[in-house]
């Protein structure tokens, strides 16, 4: 058995490795994506009062703390078993949409746009944000401003900490002021213009990416995610829907608190990542995908005019491109439009500044489940507490976990097409990595220093000896 290791996957936010296993015929037999995952955080929480959980859980992730904050607070709401004041729900929604916005902006403009807009085979020295700036300064400026806008919304609402704890079980800690509302409303139009410009650029260049569309994790799978009661796009609450590769609904709307009846978790031996699958179809047939692409396929429509117009164009192409994960990029742009339109709508609500933002109660249930659609997909927080309100068990399923099996499948597919025996080519590496990036995995508990380790690819022969090695520095 020979192995090719790509270590680490550059440009994803964190630390990961890909192992490609070659069969004796020299063809790629198996592909696996390894992550340093956070079961440790689940242990950390045991014994703590559940009111601390949102703040603690937000710290499990330096990349999208707000989604953890929201899902955790919702699990806390379930433990309190009280109705959350409407104004608090609106504020939580805005905050969470701002997280979606800034996270998608990071993924699209910073991490993917250089490949997408300059071309996968462009000179590596230019294929980055700086190179892109020289070609399309307005777009890059706009992208930076877009992400800064999302970050600033979060900072103004939840405080300027790296790990804000403003969302609490029962609501949010404090109402917002008129100045913050005005800031929200003033920023939306410019941000929408940027996203629409990016969308136009992306669509124009799409013709150059036939090969990628064909081979970027283009395989049938189920899709899973939340939809609202009308079947529209929803990130904060709703019901779980599952569709098959043809788009047919297998599960119309399932109570997310009963997620364990819907999905089961496989143990992946050499990864800390959980690998859930759709229970009714078994392992591995129950592979499903979550995230922006899944969400856009699950919904009847987005529910906001600009996003719906973009969705229509997307759907025309999506049908012809089959199951390509490559379309995640466009899905992210559409979701950014949706987030901006929804933020505008919510911020314009007459009772936005209502001071009634928190319900107080003690623990009234022993088990609470909070589910939200994080930027990368369905996020599940599941807590058990004792009679005193101390946490006894935690189960987290993060988006990257839901996608684990699909990512392996996607990498395998690309590797089979681009990897040729023992030859290690830069272009191939980029494409394998690009598949992973299309899923935008969130490798939460990573260190930033590890991200600087040089990229090393190793080729092992049947005896486990390194027969070829390729290294490049990420510095």
């Amino acid at each position, binding site marked *: 058995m020979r192995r090719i290791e790509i270590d680490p996957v*550059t*440009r994803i*936010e964190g630390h990961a490795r890909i192992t490609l296993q070659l069969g004796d015929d020299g063809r790629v037999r198996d592909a696996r994506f390894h992550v340093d995952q*956070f079961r*440790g*955080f689940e242990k950390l929480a045991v014994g703590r009062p559940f009111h601390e959980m949102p703040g603690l859980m937000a*710290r*499990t992730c*330096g*990349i999208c703390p707000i989604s953890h904050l929201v899902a955790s607070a919702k699990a806390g709401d379930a433990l309190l078993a009280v109705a959350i004041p409407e104004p608090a729900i609106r504020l939580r929604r805005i905050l969470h949409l701002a997280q979606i916005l800034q996270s998608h902006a*990071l993924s699209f*403009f*910073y*991490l993917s746009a*250089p*490949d997408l807009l300059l071309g996968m085979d462009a*000179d*590596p*020295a*230019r*294929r*980055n*944000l*700086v*190179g892109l*700036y*020289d070609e399309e*300064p307005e777009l*890059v*400026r706009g*992208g*930076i*401003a877009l*992400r*800064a806008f999302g*970050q600033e919304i979060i900072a103004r609402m939840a405080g300027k900490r*790296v790990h804000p704890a403003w969302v609490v079980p029962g609501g949010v800690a404090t109402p917002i002021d008129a100045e913050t509302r005005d800031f929200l409303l003033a920023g939306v139009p410019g941000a929408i213009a940027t996203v629409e410009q990016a969308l136009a650029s992306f669509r124009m260049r799409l013709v150059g990416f036939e090969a990628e569309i064909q081979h970027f994790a283009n395989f049938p799978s189920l899709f899973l995610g939340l939809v609202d009661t009308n079947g529209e796009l929803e990130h904060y609450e709703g019901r779980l829907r599952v569709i098959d590769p043809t788009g047919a609904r297998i599960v119309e709307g399932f109570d997310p608190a009963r997620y364990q009846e819907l999905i089961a978790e496989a143990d992946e031996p050499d990864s800390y990542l959980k690998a859930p699958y759709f229970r009714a179809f078994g392992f591995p047939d129950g592979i499903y995908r979550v995230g922006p692409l899944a969400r856009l396929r699950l919904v009847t429509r987005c529910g906001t005019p600009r996003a719906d117009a973009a969705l229509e164009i997307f759907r025309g192409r999506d049908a012809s491109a089959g199951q390509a994960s490559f379309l995640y990029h466009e899905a992210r742009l559409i979701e950014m439009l949706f987030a901006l339109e929804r933020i505008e709508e919510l911020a314009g609500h007459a009772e936005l500044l209502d001071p009634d933002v928190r319900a107080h109660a003690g623990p009234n249930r022993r088990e609470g489940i909070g589910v939200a659609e994080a930027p990368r997909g369905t996020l599940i927080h599941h807590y058990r507490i004792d009679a005193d309100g101390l946490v006894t068990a935690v189960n987290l399923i993060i988006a990257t976990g839901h996608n684990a099996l699909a990512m392996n499948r996607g990498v395998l597919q690309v590797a089979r097409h681009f990897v040729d025996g023992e030859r290690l080519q830069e272009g191939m590496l*980029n494409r394998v990595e690009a598949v992973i990036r299309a899923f935008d995995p969130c490798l939460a*508990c*990573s*260190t*930033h*220093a*590890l*991200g*600087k*380790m040089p990229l090393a690819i190793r080729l092992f022969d049947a005896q486990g000896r390194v027969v070829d090695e390729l290294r490049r*520095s*990420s*510095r």
Partner: protein
Amino acid sequence: MTTLWIGLGNSLRRDDGVGARAAEILAAEGLRARAVFQPLPELALEIAAVQRVVFLDADLDDAPGVVRQRRIAPAADPEGGHRLDVPGLLALAARLARRGPEAWIVSIGILDVDAGEGFSTPVAAGFGEFLDCARHLAVTPSASHAARTHHG
């Protein structure tokens, strides 16, 4: 006369968070300092607006506890296809402003990046020097003059 300190790292991975921790302390002292997980492009907006930027970073390749300070220049040719690193960030800032600020990096060699808080013994021992080094890079009228004569 503005200086911006940017501390990089994950505070839940022990020594990895040393730069971020230092930035938090400097911010608590009233300085313009930010603790971030990793270099992010929107920082370029802020960098473009100051005279001097000081990055506080952990270095896994250096001897644990060893503190170094050096000038850094914007990347002429940022590394291809990878995440944005500090020179790349500076290159971006230089494009956003007419000219970017003078940039320094203060690094400390680290040892332990396990999950958890607190630093390993050598990093804890070197932390005071790391902080002092960072503080001394504040722009003062005379310091900026000295820097100019030194390099000009």
